[in-house]
C-alpha cells in the first residue's frame, strides 16, 4: 500500500539557515506516527511546511500527500485536501467563542447540514467544550484550548491530522486525556502524525517513530523497538 504522506529528500531554509537537511519519511494510511527529538531539531518546521504554513520559498524536495505533490501549496489548499494541523501552542481564535472556533474549523465543508451532527460528536468527545461553548477562546485554560484546537481540526473530517506538541504545558491529568483522545481518533480511521517532547508517552502511544536531530532523521522504527533502544533511552527517555 502506498503511503498517505511521504517526504522525499525534504529540505527547509529560513533565509540562509538550513533547518531541515534532507529527510525522508512515510506515513501509511491509518497509521499513528510520532516524531521526537531535541529542541530546534526542525520538527515544527517539518509539520508546518507539510501544511503549507511556512514561506514556500524555503522548501526543497518533495511532499506527497494522497498521491499528489503538495510542496509549495498554500495552507488553505492543503487543508482542503484533508490534511489538518493542530498548531504548536494551540492558536485558538481568542476573540471567537468556542462554538465559533469550531465552526471556523468547518469552514471548508459544503455539507452544512451535517456540521451540526459532527459538532455534537466533538462535544461528546470533549464534554468540557460543550460546557463552555459561548466562552471566548482566549479565556479558556490551556488544556481546554488544546481540546478546542484538536476539535477544530477534527470537524473538518480530515484524512490525516498533524499535531504539534499536544501535551505542551498541560497538567498530567489532561495530558492523559488528550492522548486518549488521539488514540480514539486514530482508531476511528484518521491517520495521525504527531510531534512530542514527552518521548515516553509519545512512544507508548504511536505505532512508529522518527527521531530527529539537528535537521536530520537520526533513527526510525517501531515504537516498541525505539523504547528499548539504548541511545534513545539515554537521550530522550532520561535514564
Amino acid at each position, binding site marked *: 500500500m502506498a503511503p498517505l504522506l511521504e517526504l522525499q529528500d525534504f529540505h527547509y531554509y529560513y533565509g540562509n*539557515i538550513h533547518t531541515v537537511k534532507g529527510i525522508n519519511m512515510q506515513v501509511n494510511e491509518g497509521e499513528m506516527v510520532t516524531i*521526537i*527529538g*531535541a*529542541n*530546534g531539531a526542525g520538527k515544527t518546521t517539518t509539520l508546518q511546511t507539510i501544511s503549507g504554513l511556512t514561506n514556500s520559498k524555503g522548501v526543497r524536495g518533495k511532499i506527497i500527500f494522497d498521491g499528489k505533490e503538495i510542496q509549495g501549496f498554500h495552507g488553505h489548499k492543503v487543508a482542503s485536501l484533508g490534511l489538518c494541523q493542530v498548531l504548536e*501552542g494551540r492558536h485558538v481564535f481568542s476573540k471567537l467563542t468556542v462554538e465559533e472556533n469550531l465552526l471556523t474549523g468547518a469552514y471548508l465543508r459544503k455539507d452544512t447540514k451535517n456540521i451540526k451532527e459532527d459538532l455534537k460528536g466533538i462535544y461528546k468527545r470533549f464534554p468540557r467544550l460543550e460546557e463552555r461553548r459561548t466562552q471566548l477562546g482566549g479565556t*479558556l*485554560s*490551556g*488544556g*481546554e484550548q488544546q481540546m478546542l484546537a484538536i476539535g477544530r481540526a477534527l470537524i473538518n473530517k480530515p484524512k490525516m491530522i498533524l499535531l504539534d*506538541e499536544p501535551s*505542551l*504545558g*498541560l*497538567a*498530567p*491529568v*489532561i495530558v*492523559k*486525556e488528550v492522548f486518549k483522545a488521539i488514540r480514539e481518533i486514530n482508531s476511528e480511521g484518521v491517520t495521525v502524525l504527531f510531534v512530542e*517532547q514527552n*518521548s*515516553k508517552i509519545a512512544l507508548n502511544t504511536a505505532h512508529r517513530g522518527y527521531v530527529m536531530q539537528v535537521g536530520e532523521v537520526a533513527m526510525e522504527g517501531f515504537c516498541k523497538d525505539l523504547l528499548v533502544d539504548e541511545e534513545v533511552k*539515554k*537521550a*530522550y*527517555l*532520561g*535514564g
Partner: protein
Amino acid sequence: MLKTEGVTIRFGGLVAVNKVSIHVRKGQITGLIGPNGAGKTTFFNCISGVYTPAEGSVIFDGKHVEGLKPHKINEVGMARTYQVINLFRQMTVQENIMVGMHTRLKSNFWSDMLHLPSERKEEKFVREETEKWMEFVGLQDMANQQAGSLSYGKQRLLEIVRGLASGPKLILLDEPVAGMNSKEKEEFDALLRRILDLDVTILMIEHDMKLVMGVCDYVYCLEHGTLLAEGVPEVVQNHPDVIAAYLGGDE
C-alpha cells in the same frame, strides 16, 4: 522571605485566585502546581506586580509589595520568567542580559546623554558582569546572536539568566521546562541547584512532576483559584484531591 496572605484576584465575575496564602522560605525551591487554568500564572502575575490583588497582601522581605508596578517589584529583588518566552528577540544575547541588569545600574538619562566618566565606568562593569552570566549558563559563544534565533531551550536559559542578572533575592519561574525533552530537563535540575548556590530563592510553576518531586522542598497545589494542598512533595503527591484533580489515576 515571600509571604502572601489571602490573595484574591477577580476578572469580572470570575475569581481566578481565591484567598491564597503561601510562604516561600529563603534558600529553598518552592513549587506551585495545579491543573490548567487553576490560576497559577495569574497568581504569579499578582506577585510580580502585573495585577493588583483585589484582597490580601503580598509581603516580601517584611515589606508590603502588593500594588507595586512590575518595575518596582524588580527593584525590590524579585525577577521572573514567563510561561510564553518573553525575550527581546531582536537584541543580542549580551544585550538581553544587560537589560536584565537595568535596576542594578545607577547611571541616569543625563549621564548617559553626556557619556560621563561614571557612566563609562559602569558600562565596563556591565560588560564584565554580562560575560560572567553568559558563562553561568553556557551562552558565551552566542553573545552576539539575536535572541530570537536561539533554539527554544537556549531561549529558556537566557530568560532565566536575564532574570538572575538583576541580582534578585527571589526568582519566579513559570513552567521553565515546558517543551524541553527529558535530557534537557535533567540538566535543568542541576542549573536550579546552582541558582540556589547563588543565594537566590526559587518559586516555580511546573507541570513536570518528575522535576517537581525531584527538586522542590515544598509544594503548593492550586485548583480553581484555591489552595488544594501543601506540604513536602511526597505529601502533596499522595494527596487524594491532588491525584483526582491534577495527576490523574494510574492507567
